[in-house]
């Protein structure tokens, strides 16, 4: 006989004028290896078919099911109920636009963020489809891959005090993206060009080092180290260009 779990789930449908933000309680008997995703699916199937939450891969790869679990952002599919107390409070991620209940629109935010920081390889080289792919050192490829593991779930942004207070802050996810392209030998952007993207208070200098991003990242990305590297790199770039910032 498993524990009797009590779920308190945030409910609100912004599209319905009659809907008022409130919390609904559900009870469920815990089963072996139960994840929050399994619990939510059961609640929806057995108790309330109107409950909205996002999921896709169920394996911590797609990043869809991020939500605030007992105060901390995390992935529902990667969170085992046995790691949580009997009373589980679920809320949607802050910062992002609420679709309904636990479902938020991270897509619009991430699209805008990726466009803002130019999150793709910038190169002048013409693409030759017949040529062999350029090679890079294995060590470099591994370093890039380590940062490329980000699933854009939005947990780092939701956990960030700065991003919660200031909507213009790009968040750890964007800075991690830039760190990734800085490592990539195929990207021809110079340090000064990177500085134009993140050398501001919306970028790396807006980060206050609260490190909640580092502590909640479900993929355990090395965000603390990357943010430190970026601040130092961009700090040096600024000093090197002390007298040469010009409007171009």
């Amino acid at each position: 006989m498993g524990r009797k779990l009590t779920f308190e789930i945030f409910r609100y449908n912004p599209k319905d004028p009659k809907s008022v933000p409130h919390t609904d309680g559900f009870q469920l008997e815990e089963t072996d290896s139960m994840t929050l995703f399994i619990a939510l699916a059961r609640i929806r199937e057995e108790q309330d078919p109107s409950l909205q939450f996002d999921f896709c891969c169920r394996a911590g790869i797609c990043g869809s099911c991020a939500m605030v679990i007992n105060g901390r952002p995390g992935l529902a599919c990667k969170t085992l109920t046995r790691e949580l107390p009997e009373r589980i409070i679920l809320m949607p991620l802050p910062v992002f636009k609420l679709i309904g209940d636990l479902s938020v629109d991270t897509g619009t935010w991430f699209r805008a963020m990726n466009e803002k920081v130019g999150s793709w390889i910038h190169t002048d080289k013409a693409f030759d489809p017949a040529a062999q792919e350029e090679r890079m050192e294995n060590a470099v490829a591994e370093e890039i891959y380590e940062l490329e593991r980000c699933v854009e779930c939005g947990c780092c942004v939701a956990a960030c005090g700065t991003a919660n207070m200031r909507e213009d802050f790009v968040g750890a996810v964007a800075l991690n993206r830039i760190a990734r392209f800085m490592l990539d030998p195929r990207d021809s952007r110079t340090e000064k060009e990177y500085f134009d993207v993140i050398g501001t208070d919306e970028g790396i200098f807006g980060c206050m080092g609260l490190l909640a991003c580092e502590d909640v990242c479900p993929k355990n990305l090395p965000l603390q180290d990357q943010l430190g590297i970026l601040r130092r790199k961009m700090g040096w770039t600024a000093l090197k260009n002390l007298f040469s910032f010009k409007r171009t």
Partner: protein
Amino acid sequence: MAIDTTVFVRERTGLAAYLDWLQALTGTGLILFMWSHMVLVASVNLGAGAMNTIARFFEDTYMAQVGGPLIGITFLLHFVLAARKVPFRSEQQSVIWKHGRLLRHTDTWLWLVQVVTAMIILIMGSIHMWTVLTDLPITAAKSAARVQGGFWLVFYLILLPMVELHVGIGFYRIGVKWGFIKRKDRKGMKRFENILTAIFIAIGLITIVRFLTLTI
């Protein structure tokens, strides 16, 4: 992050970086000053003569007369620089307060401690500097008389932990922000910072008690 709705070209400037550099450098300078200050004042524990000799040295070399106001300016500059990040709008204050309570995350709380202590230090630190620097020379007898008066005892019992907390957390924060403290060292450094803060508060309390019991 706001979605761009305007079309404009932002001026290319390194201002944010320079301000961040200055914040870290003034912060580091003040941390080193505060730790040295504590050790120097604590010299009274070795005897009033020890403290008087040290104070005399700083006045004879004009380090107190010139350095004092310079520290004051650095202190105010550091406040203005760090205030760029402090939530002054009630809307932001409410967001960060709710966020902190929901997240229950130590480093986020530590930042809020820094913000609150900063406001108290701004006022009390200014009063302390003004009082001491307008009444040179510094002697153990004068300091003891102040503390024994009662008002300044309460004043320093509040200011001491505020400063040591702010300085200790600041030391850790500069380390993680600028990447000197890496992921693998973070836990250890946080422990080190906590111990260091506790040691300095203890030294401070012992020194206050010494002033309290010093025969003038």
